[in-house]
Structure formats: C-alpha cells, structure tokens
C-alpha cells in the first residue's frame, strides 16, 4: 500500500510575527514542519511498525531553502520524500486550492492508495486542502481521524473523534484522511538521521507542472489592536465579587 502524507513547512508558530511597515516580518523566525503534520507523520510511521509492507511518502510543497528540514522528516522513519519546489513563487501566497490541485496531479501520477492530510495548518488554519483533494480525486474522505486501527488489502479501519463522540469506520481504499493525531513523544535521534541517509528525496518543480496561476483572493495583514486593560488591584475576594456580580 502506498501512503502519501502531506507536510507543510511554516514559520515557527511559537514566535509571534511582527509587522514592519505593514509587512509581516519573519526575519527572526525559523522554519519548522507544521506540528500537526509532524504528528501525522509520526502516527503513520508507528502504524507501519504493524504493517511493514506500507510505503510512506511525505509530499512537501515548499521553497528550496526548506530542503534542510527534509532530512528530519526522513529521520522520522518515512520511506521517501516528494519535494515540490516553488521556484519563482512565494510559498505563503500559494493557497489551499492551488496546493490541492498540485497534490492531485502527483497523487494520480504516483498512484497512492491512501492520502493523509492535517486538519489545518498551524499558520493560516484554513483546513481546506484535505477536503478539496478528496473532491479532485473523487475519493471518499474521513475527517477528525484520531487513530489508525487496522488495515486489510482494500480497506482501512480508522477511529474519528468528533467532540463527545468516537466513531470507528471502515473506509474503502483509496481514500483521503483528514487527521488530528496526538503529538508524538518520540524524538528523532542522530541514529535515525544516519539510518535515513540513503533514503530518497524526489524533487519536482512546481513551475513545470503546466499550471498557470491567477490570483483568487487578496490578503492584507495587520496586527489587531490589543484591548486596553484596567490593571486595577483589588484588596480582597469580597471586593472582587462585588465588582463583578453585585
């Protein structure tokens, strides 16, 4: 079974972006693999321990300077990486619809049986790629997937968590899973990186995919004003409760 896992490389969500003359300034921010996608990769690698015949490919659409992070992904235990370079395009202006179209091309060409995407990215939080990809491929789709339970030749048993419900489904392959796995505790060691040294990184160029781009949405960023707080000290509980509820 060929499994494709999408991974987005983003600016570190822990570091607050600042605006410099209205432009988002990322000078001090490092690039990281989206934590949501990292959890997905860790979960599928763990699932592979039970089913070693699976071939896991991480599909990553990003700029060339992010290629150093790919070794970390290989160290996590995936079999190969498909790196789509966005030469001449700023990574941040490529939205979900474009990503879904690019991914669809590759998934059809490479004949994957299962595609795993994150519930949303940690930066723009749109959650668009997974559902759109399912539509473009004409595959069935499951979302809120929190656990991979079992697999057979042409089907997969997965668990979905939706608010206060847990549902177990049998999904026929091929399918798209929009996942939100728990963060893995496992760290990539030096040994993992050495072991991954001979694994493949396939490189594709986005500008050679025969797609012409036009703008669909325009975006203006600004920092929202922080509410001015009173910062008033209270002496005791009584005055607090009287201020609030009396």
């Amino acid at each position, binding site marked *: 079974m060929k499994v494709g896992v999408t991974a987005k490389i983003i600016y570190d969500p822990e570091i607050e972006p600042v605006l410099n003359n209205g432009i988002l300034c990322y000078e001090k921010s490092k690039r990281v693999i989206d934590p949501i996608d990292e959890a997905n990769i860790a979960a599928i690698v763990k699932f592979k321990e039970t089913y070693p015949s699976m071939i896991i490919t991480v599909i990553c659409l990003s700029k060339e300077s992010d290629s150093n992070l790919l070794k970390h992904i290989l160290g996590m235990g995936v079999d190969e990486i498909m790196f789509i370079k966005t030469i001449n395009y700023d990574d941040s202006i490529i939205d979900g619809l474009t990503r879904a179209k690019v991914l669809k091309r590759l998934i059809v060409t490479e004949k994957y049986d299962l595609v795993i995407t994150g519930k949303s990215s940690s930066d723009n939080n749109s959650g668009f790629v997974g559902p759109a990809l399912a*539509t473009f491929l004409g595959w069935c789709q499951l979302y809120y997937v929190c656990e991979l339970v079992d697999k057979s030749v042409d089907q997969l048993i997965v668990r979905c968590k939706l608010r206060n419900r847990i549902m177990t489904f049998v999904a026929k392959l091929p399918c798209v899973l929009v996942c939100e796995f728990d963060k893995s505790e496992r760290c990539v060691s030096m040994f993992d990186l050495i072991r991954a040294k001979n694994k493949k990184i396939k490189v594709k160029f986005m500008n050679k995919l025969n797609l012409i781009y036009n703008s669909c949405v325009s975006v203006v960023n600004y920092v929202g004003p922080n509410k001015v707080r009173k*910062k008033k000290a209270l002496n005791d*509980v009584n005055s607090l409760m009287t201020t609030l509820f009396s």
Partner: protein
Amino acid sequence: MIKNSLIILEAKNNKFSSDDQKLINFISKSSEKISILTVNCNYACAKTLKKVNKIYLLATKIPINIVRNNCTFALLVAGLILDYDLVVADVDSCYHNVICRAAAAVNRYVISNVYNILDDNIFVRTIHAGKINQHVGFECGKPWLISVKLSLIFNPDEGLTTTKQDKDHKCNGKLNSNVETKDQNVGIGVCNNIDGKDKRTNDSKDSLTDNNKTVREGVIQHEVIVSDVGVQESGGVNINSVGLEVKSCEIKSKNIDGKKINKDIKPIEAISDVKYLIINFPIRKQIQLLSYSKIEVDPELPELSKADIVIAGGRSFGTEENFKTWLRPLAIKLGAAIGATRGAVELGCAPAELQIGSAGLIISPKLYIAFGISGSDHHMAGVKNAKTIIAINIDKDATIMSMADYYLTMDMFDVISGMTKWLDDKKMTNINCLIQNLDKNQFQSDEQEVKISTN
C-alpha cells in the same frame, strides 16, 4: 451588500442552538436574503429560526451522519451554492469540511475563521493563532464561501462592529495596498474530476488551465416539484453526477405565525413569507460505521469555546486531582467552563482539550479568571479577546497582572474558597442572574471609561 446567502446548520436533537441563530444574525447584517440548509431538522424545528427567507429541509429515513455521508452531502451543497452569492458554515463544525469539499467542486476557495465582514467583499479573519488579523477579499466571481469563527464574534446583535483600524484598511471596497497585499495564486475554471466526471464553472477570470481536462456542463442540474401549491417551479436541486435523484418540495407559508404584520415597521425577524423546500436525501453506505461511543463529558459544565465565564488554572495546581477538586465546584456555581495552560496540560493536571492558547483553544468569554497563571505569550494569545480578565496570583510581578482588568495578589486556594463562600452567602444560585449582573457591571464600567476619556 450581498444579495443571497446560504447557511448550513445542523439541529441537535431536533433543536437549534443559540450559536446557530448567532450565525444567522451575523450574516443577516451583510446579506439581503438568507437561506438555510438544515440537517436533521423537521418543519417545527426549522420554524424556530429567525431572519430567514428560505429553508431547505432534508427528508431522510434516519438521521444523517455527516462524517459518514460527507461525499453525497458535499455534492448536494455544490449543486445549491451556484444559486447563491455567499455560502457559510461554522468553522468549528463538520460543515466546514463539507463546504471545502463543495467549494473545490465548483473551483472555489473557502476563507476560514471569518469573524467580521466589512463591505461587500472584505472578510476579516485571524491567522497565527489570533496574533495577526487579515482582510481577505475574493478576486473571483460569486459564489464565495466562508466559514465563520463564532467565538470571535463579540456582540452580533449590535451588528458588525467596524473599528477605526478596520476602516483605515478599507479602500473603496478593495484591499488597501499600502500594507502587505498578497495575490494568492489560484486558478478559476479548472476542471475538477468528481467520481470520474469533469465539471467546471464559467468565469471570466478562468485562467488556471489544465490541458488534460475538458469542460462539461450539466453535471449539477436543478429540478423542483412544488408540492403543496401544486405548481412546478425551478429552484431545487437534482444532482445526477453520482446518480442521486433529489426531488424538492416547496411549502409556501404566507404567514407562519398567523399574525398580521405591519410592513412599515416589520423587523427583520418577522419574515412572513418563508419558503420551505424539502429535499429527499438518500443515505448511502459509502463508509461503513463499525462502532459508535460517547466520550464522557461533565454535563454540569458548559463547553469551553462557548462559555460566558471561564476559570483556568496553571501548573501550580500540581496534580489532576487538585485541579479538579478546587476548580470544579466553583465552575459549577459560576456556570463556568474550566480551562488550563499548556504547562498544566503537560504536567497532566488537565486534558489537552482544555488547553487555552495559541496551540490550544482561542476563547472570547465575557469573564476570564486565571488562577495561578503567570501569563505567557502563548496563553494570553488565547484569551486576549476576553471582555474582562481577572488575574489571581501570589506573585505580584507575574506578567498576567499587567494584562488583566483586575488582579488580586493572594493565594489562589484562599481566593477559590472565598469566592465559593461569597456565592453561598449571597445565595447566588441562578447562573443567568449572575451573567446578567456581570453584563450590567461591564456595561457600567465601559460607560465610566468613555466618560473619563471624553473629559
């Protein structure tokens, strides 16, 4: 002004929540007409919705499980959205996924996390866990699709609040280019393959071309049977692309409540000519459901993302037992939800679902009380929209003290006991009454502030 909007809502136990009406109220400020596509809802339940012009009811033999039937449902939505200018879902519901799927079918993008609409085509949303706001406008033709972050809408009944900064960013209905403007590269009009069939929307801006595909129209067709008045009329949906046959029946109700309404003073709520259309929705076993179970949730506490009052604790509680024993009784008395910091979650004091912050939930309650929380950037990003912040910490130099409306430099356990005792002494058992008092006090406080600033 947007002419015609479609909102997708699901009734829980054949009842709509206040959040559903909140979503309608929010959209009604920017849209002339509102249609609702209801799921798991009957006529009586649909009647309870206000400010609505048309309601689609799905006729099914059993309740629809959207996770299981998302493919069929998304195709139904894709058929409907071509008749609308704006299609809306709640970003925190599973219908966000549905509209994303439907949007791709008609070659559109979904702007998510919208919490304000400025003008016809400027949607305000947050990114980077609420740290950055964005004004996003569609560059393509209608239909436009958005998913709304309800918890960030402050007071929808007072209308959309256009802040000074918001206005500064507007420029004749177009996005101002003196700040960062990004043209997101997207193709309009590419043919999409759905279940083996190609389809495409006509758009003058169609430009992302895919040479391997051809254009075909007519995948999604329309057909309506008007049942009660016996007249056939177009406007319903018939989706043939996957072999579905969806017939629609219209129930015209001239005056639902049977009341005579003066047109001159007619409030938006009192729409007298609401159209009801029934769509037969075939439930297909696309995905087999093996088992179904409910996660135990505390029935006495409200949902964290929707609560008016939130009390939260940090790692200073030490253990899960301490966290629960101290916070739960107070939460029940206040009708509050319990939240936690990342530190508390990592220490195992609270489950991950309760984490507030940039990597957890972003909340906007009326009152947020932080017990023993230092106030890291990560955590404060999640509560910065709270109307009133109370900080209780023994450390007077804790960061949160300078970010709160009121602070108490006291031991948090003494404060929790004191608050519980105060509520008992005053016999404050009615939570609605507490919230009303809180609203009143917050309003008075705001008025005082305005007076001081004008003086």
